[in-house]
């Protein structure tokens, strides 16, 4: 690491290399498309059900909730931070809503407020968690990784505490709606997931705010020098990410018609894997929302193919881990740069 050779490449050489690299850089966004096509073909060979509409909707439905965590994490990663606590927010936010709205006597519910409050409560809890994270990371300058690791444990514990380790059932109907409704014959959560990703692509790629995130993640001093209010941008990114996690949790609860004490437990690993496979850098400033989407899509397609192939459920976890590592190796080979 002290071996930094101070020999810049000569001008003519870089200019010659320049053109093809532009194309490569653009193609980087679509790097996973061939892999997705291959998996689709393999899936179709393994089981002709694979490409049928029902199965595709099934894949999208299964990934829709967790994909909101990927969306949220991508925003935070691009800005050069990390938020591990998203998976606990995913459980705690709907958990608190259920706790306050589910009638007393049914499990751990308190029945303090009418069911119509459940969605505002979910989102408010999400926003509050985001603000605590931002306060500690941005305002007090604490290490984001450790702060959100601590938050992950605290929030998980809070959910276990309020639920007594039980699962909340008999959720109010407003909580069930988004996770279970069908719009135009397709689950509402799929529509929401696709819409939010489309919005995310626009946000990161085409807005001043999104480009400010990249600038901060790439070189925070240069971003400041360019007049970007870095603290404010980071605050909104962290709060927005927590809000998205809360929304994802709401979809999950509606889908399952319950909030388990372990909702979202362990999801953060899949989230990071999807983001990194999709080309989002862990050090900030790198990656696109579209890439992140292809990352999570690829992971869930592979899982689906394995299930269709009759791989015993006990083995899927090990295979998942292996797939993540193989995907990283492939992106190292195609991207060519050392991943830090």
């Amino acid at each position, binding site marked *: 690491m002290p071996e930094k050779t101070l*020999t*810049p490449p000569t001008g003519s050489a870089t200019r010659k290399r320049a053109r093809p690299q532009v194309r490569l850089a653009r193609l980087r966004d679509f790097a996973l498309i061939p892999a997705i096509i291959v998996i689709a073909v393999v899936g179709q060979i393994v089981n002709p059900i694979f490409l049928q509409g029902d199965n595709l909707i099934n894949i999208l439905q299964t990934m829709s909730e967790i994909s909101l965590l990927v969306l949220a994490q991508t925003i935070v990663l691009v800005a050069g931070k990390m938020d591990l606590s998203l998976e606990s927010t995913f459980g705690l936010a709907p958990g608190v809503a259920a706790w306050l709205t589910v009638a007393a006597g049914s499990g751990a519910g308190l029945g303090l407020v009418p069911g119509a409050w459940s969605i505002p409560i979910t989102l408010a809890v999400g926003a509050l968690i985001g603000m605590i994270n931002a306060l500690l990371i941005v305002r007090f300058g604490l290490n984001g990784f450790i702060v959100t690791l601590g938050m992950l444990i605290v929030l998980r514990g809070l959910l276990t505490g309020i639920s007594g380790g039980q699962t909340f059932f008999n959720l109010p109907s407003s909580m069930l709606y988004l996770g279970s409704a069908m719009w135009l014959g397709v689950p509402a959560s799929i529509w929401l997931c696709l819409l939010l990703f489309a919005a995310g692509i626009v946000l990161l790629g085409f807005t001043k705010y999104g480009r400010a995130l990249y*600038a901060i993640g790439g070189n925070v001093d240069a971003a400041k020098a360019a007049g970007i209010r870095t603290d404010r941008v980071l605050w909104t990114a962290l709060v927005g990410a927590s809000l998205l996690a809360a929304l994802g949790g709401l979809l999950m609860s509606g889908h399952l018609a319950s909030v388990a004490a372990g909702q979202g437990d362990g999801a953060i690993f899949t989230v990071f894997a999807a983001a990194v496979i999709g080309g989002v850098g862990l050090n900030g400033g790198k990656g696109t929302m579209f890439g992140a989407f292809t990352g999570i899509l690829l992971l869930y397609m592979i899982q689906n193919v394995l299930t269709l192939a009759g791989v015993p459920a006990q083995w899927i976890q090990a295979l998942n881990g292996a797939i993540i590592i193989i995907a990283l190796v492939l992106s190292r080979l195609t991207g060519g740069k050392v991943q830090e």
Partner: protein
Amino acid sequence: MAADQAPTPLAEAVDVTKRYGETVALDRAGIRIMPGQTHALVGRNGAGKSTLVSILTGLQAPDEGEVRFDGEPAPRLADRDAWRQRVACVYQKSTIIPQLTVAENLYLNRHAAFVNWPDLRRKAAALLETWSVDVDVRLPAGELDVEQRQFVEIARALSFGARFIILDEPTAQLDAAAIARLFARIRTLQEQGVTFLFISHHLQEIYEICDTVTVFRDARHILTTSVAGLPHAELVAALAGEAAGLAGASSRTAVPAGAGVVLGVRGLAYGDAYREIGFEIQDGEIVGLAGAAGSGRTELAETIAGLRAADSGTIEVAGRVPSPGSVPDALAAGVGFVPRDRHHQGFVPMMSIADNATMTVPERLGEAGLISGRRRDRLAGTLIANLAIKTPGPGLPVMGLSGGNQQKVVMARALASDPRLLVLITPTAGVDVKSKEFLLGKVEETAAKGTGVLIASDELDDLRLCDRLLVMFQGRVVAEMAAGWHDHDVVAAMEGVRLDA
């Protein structure tokens, strides 16, 4: 050319003082830059150049004194936009965001709420076209080389409306052809009405490109004069000062004739850093390797210490040829090493003095890879006593020590292996005067026991105790001087100027 122009300077700093704690970085210093000039600012390390730049660009406020642009007081520090319309600086350290494209870097945070990429690229391309910078705006900025990056940063500065640009050692990382292209561009821009403040370590560049020069020394303004008609010797004298430094250079006795050769270097070359290097060091001899930053002296010293592998040539230490680029092998051959930057390579800040000082000699601390704490502390104890490190005990983390004592720990580590050859790079950088004298005294003491010493530095005080001085400039040894050299000669050789010009 300045004679018929308006007398208002484009930018000026008047009686500026800036202190950092006890250190006075600028002492009632000032500079006046007239419109259309290319003005050089020179001074040796610690002269206050960087502080003046940060004050002129509005990154810091002076403690006393005032900055004016076009005769009007400078804007508030918080008003970045106003500053950027007046002055821009191309720092040695890049202020671009490597992951983003050139186009986006040029217009960072200056677009509307929604980004229109084709339009942005067009505007960026047009901007670069205006200033004839030939760079593809779609490239990630991280893929530009230093030269292209500088041009892009200059273009960005101009796009804010600034017509006064500070170039902070722009040539330090460029090769000769790129320097020529940079100078051509500076001249073109100058004709278009852009004013430059040019900071450089290389005096011949100033004669080539600048019309006025200001010299700073020891936080003070020394002189401002027109470059034409300024004899080289006078400029060097202003830089070096009068008889600076510690006296009593040669209390040392000459190395006895017929002493063994501890270091033999033949035909060494390494990339762009240095080439055709050959010299010898005898037992007990202290040899100085003088050279400005970027002269290749650091790379050469690091090669001898095993941190780098030379492209060609051989290094022989005490009759052995250590495998190139291997620090363990260099250590085994008897090389003790004080690296350039103690914070990066010198010590592990959170580990104790004992651990740090004995890091190079684990085999003396116990058998079979185990380390005996008692033996370590005993050895560390002798080292601490030997180097007079001020500490309550060997267990204190190194980061708790003052700069001078930290450097002594690094020296202790180098001496722990009883080296046959000691390689030191800027061994007294950032330490107080007393520690400095002590460390250099220790070097002499070590040499007196028969160890050969190589000191790579641009600090004349470090080099004074040397028996012999090799001066490097742009990767070559350009001069060899015996003890008793004159300060001016060394500075001139390091800067690559001839005094008889």
